[in-house]
């Protein structure tokens, strides 16, 4: 590369990446990729799963080494052999989907880990807390810096990560799907934090699958497809439709469900589910008098912010969590709430949990083992020995039905893309032939192509008479999928909408927490 050229460019760009290639055994993950991020820019890095975004981020953070290509940050050449620490020292900080916080230490300690203010070698605690309080105030967060990080919500932990990056005098913060686990108001807070840091001169690379967010937050974008650079430009003046076409290479629509014949009998209902808030622990929100029902062939959407009670109710229905009061009706028969997922599965209820990696997949284990685990009883001889031939048949059947892209069903499920992992989890539930299917965040972190396929699968399930409950943070998704929408707010049900007259505005109104109450939630009180 001509020296003069890169010198010229670095005046205009904070980060400049050229011609990066990375080969994995059997796959060319990146092929001549380039990326330019200006100072004080929020730059969206877009692409379907498997497009090479994660690989590029890893190369930038120093976790992976590129086979070829070069990069400069603020005029300084990024050496291929840099460790993640070296890159951090240069001001390039990466925030992963899995957090790197120490859960049992306070917010302040996490913010200044390794850089605590000291006096004669001893940590100056008053100064530490003072600095932390000032930094948190700058970020617009009113949390007590003495609180232990493990008591914070996912959203807040993420803010703390960003705060830490800010405290490290970051020039460029790389965020991999920061809003995948957030909803509504939390996203707004995150955006505010990012804008705040931006005015202080920090740039961002922002990976997201939510394109509305790109329009809202980002200045520039770069699209990758199949490991190649496709396009880049300014967000302003670009339609979401165009971005999708660039990412997928064709037109895709998130179609609303065509309503079918009237749904059948009520399969499952819960009445008056309640649970007290725990002063410390998992249950941050009290649940009050939650009732819901779902009929055969119907898709019911659970909408609401994270922590508002939608996932909580689903887990209670599934027996994964306990409740203090309430009743469950299965096919009209009243019974006590289920006490374990084991009971739920026996009763014909299946769950695709919200967190694919933590709660769904056995990442090290094979695709077929992941797919058949809960239904092994059906394919075991004398209920003991797994019938390999039958297992292969089941796996093949669902691989074809769900169009799961895999070379070999003995490969680890962790080697699949997010979309295909999600399909494996759906296949696992379908193999149980459930009467009720609960899907929590069916398309979190998966690309648009797979998303449409997953939606179609859920339609098909409902069509075949399964009662489906869908939980989603994405309003368009809830609207597209559901026949009926139950909206949760702060542990209560704030409304039930028929999808025919539901709109994003109506949903938003029912979900939104009053400003004062929202502030109270922020302090975590």
């Amino acid at each position, binding site marked *: 590369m001509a020296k003069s050229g890169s010198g010229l460019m670095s005046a205009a760009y904070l980060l400049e990446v050229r011609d990066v290639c990375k080969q994995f055994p059997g796959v060319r993950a990146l092929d001549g990729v380039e990326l330019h991020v200006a100072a004080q820019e929020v730059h969206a890095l877009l692409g379907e799963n498997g497009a090479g975004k994660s690989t590029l981020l890893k190369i930038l953070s120093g976790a992976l080494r590129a086979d070829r290509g070069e990069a400069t940050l603020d005029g300084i050449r990024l050496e291929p052999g840099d460790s993640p620490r070296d890159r951090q020292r240069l001001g390039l900080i990466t925030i992963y989907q899995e957090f790197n916080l120490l859960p049992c230490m306070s917010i302040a300690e996490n913010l200044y880990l390794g850089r605590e203010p000291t006096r004669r070698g001893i940590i100056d605690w008053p100064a530490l807390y003072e600095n932390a309080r000032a930094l948190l105030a700058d970020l617009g967060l009113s949390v007590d810096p003495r609180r232990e990080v493990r008591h914070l919500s996912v959203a807040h932990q993420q803010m703390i990560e960003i705060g830490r990056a800010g405290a490290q005098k970051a020039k460029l913060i790389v965020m991999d799907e920061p809003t995948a686990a957030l909803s509504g108001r939390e996203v707004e807070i995150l955006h505010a934090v990012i804008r705040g840091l931006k005015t202080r001169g920090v740039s961002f690379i922002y990976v997201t699958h939510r394109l509305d967010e790109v329009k809202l937050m980002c200045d520039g974008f770069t699209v990758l497809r199949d490991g190649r650079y496709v396009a880049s430009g300014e967000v302003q003046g670009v339609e979401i439709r165009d971005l999708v076409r660039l990412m997928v290479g064709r037109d895709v629509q998130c179609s609303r469900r065509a309503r079918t014949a009237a749904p059948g009998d009520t399969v499952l209902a819960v009445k008056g589910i309640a649970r007290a808030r725990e002063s410390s622990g998992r249950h941050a929100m009290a649940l009050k008098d939650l009732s819901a029902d779902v009929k055969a062939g119907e898709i019911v959407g659970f909408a609401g912010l994270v922590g508002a009670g939608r996932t909580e109710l689903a887990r209670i229905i599934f027996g994964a969590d306990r409740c203090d009061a309430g009743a469950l009706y299965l096919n009209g028969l009243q019974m006590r709430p289920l006490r374990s997922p*084991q009971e739920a*599965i026996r009763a014909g209820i299946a769950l695709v*949990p919200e967190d694919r990696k933590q*709660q769904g997949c*056995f990442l*090290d*284990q094979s695709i077929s083992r992941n797919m058949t685990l809960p239904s092994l009883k059906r394919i*075991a001889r004398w209920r003991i020995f*797994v019938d390999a031939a039958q297992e292969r048949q089941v796996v093949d059947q669902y691989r074809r039905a769900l169009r799961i892209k895999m070379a070999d069903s003995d490969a680890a499920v962790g080697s699949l893309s997010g979309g295909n992992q999600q399909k494996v989890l759906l296949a696992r539930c379908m193999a149980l032939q459930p009467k009720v299917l609960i899907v929590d965040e069916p398309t979190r972190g998966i690309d648009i192509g797979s998303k449409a396929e997953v939606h179609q699968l859920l339609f098909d399930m409902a069509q075949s008479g399964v009662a489906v409950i869908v939980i989603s943070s994405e309003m368009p998704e809830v609207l597209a999928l559901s026949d009926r929408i139950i909206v949760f707010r702060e542990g209560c049900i704030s409304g039930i909408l028929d999808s025919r007259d539901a709109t994003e505005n109506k949903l938003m109104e029912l979900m939104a927490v009053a400003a004062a109450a929202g502030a109270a939630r922020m302090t975590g009180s």
Partner: protein
Amino acid sequence: MTPGRRIDVVGWLRRYGTTLFLLALILFFGLDNPRFLSIRNLANILTEVSIYGIIAVGMTFVILTAGVDLAVGSLLAFAGMSGAYVMKALGAGDPLSWLAALATATAVGSLVGYLQGKAVTFFSIPPFIVTLGGLTIWRGATLILNDGSPISGFDAHYRWWGTGSIAGVPVPIVLFGAIAAAGLATQRYTRYGRYIYAVGGNPEAARLNGLDVAGIITSVYLIVGALAGLAGFLLSARLGAAEAVGGIGYELRVIASVVIGGTSLAGGRGGVGGTIIGALLIGVLTNGLVIMHVSSYWQQVVIGLIIVAAVAFDTYAKSHRE
């Protein structure tokens, strides 16, 4: 960069490295001293390996669930002593007294294993702590049982289990072979085997898939307890006495076999196949060093180094894959 087939040396070594090392050791010791490769010596090694290898099969399951059992050495002694005690009480002359001893030893082992498993699951005490307690509790209980003295005077039927042979193969080796085969079949072909990997790989996901996580965890401690009981019986039959100091340090040999065999202490990865190689490796190394007249002090150093090296390599190979 030429895409396509490159031989993945690290991956291959990770898979077969321990076996290669075992073969290299056998070759090395054999060249050094032909006596090492005599049938008699090999049978000796295998019989020695069988006693703790039997426990190591069960320990593999425990470690696959991300647990550990430090009490197996003490439990071996306690169960063996209990069996011998019952036999004595019945009178050594009874031709079926060995059966009473065998039944007692395995029953005591199972019961203790079950209790330890319950302590882990019901009271949520970390397995390390439960079995660290067990390590001293059952050693103490062994001393109490017969006031610290050994019990001996077994009849020929009893001794057959430790010193006899079936078709020329020493009985402990036959039993080890059978139990190892059962272990392999369990991990490979049964629902239960799948469940163990699931519980160790991701306990929360296992629970959400309707598995009885607590029950499965309890069961692996029961299994390793039963096998420790059986090993206690075999050891007493082999030595002709149940000793209060029997099996001291066995927990380390057993855990080392599993770990050298490539089973991850974090759970969910590994298996009985590796454990068998690991157990053989320790047996060959101990015996070979004795034949080479290396002092027993140095033997401990060497075995320790190999444990650390095996795990270090495994970790390296894992990070190498990215």
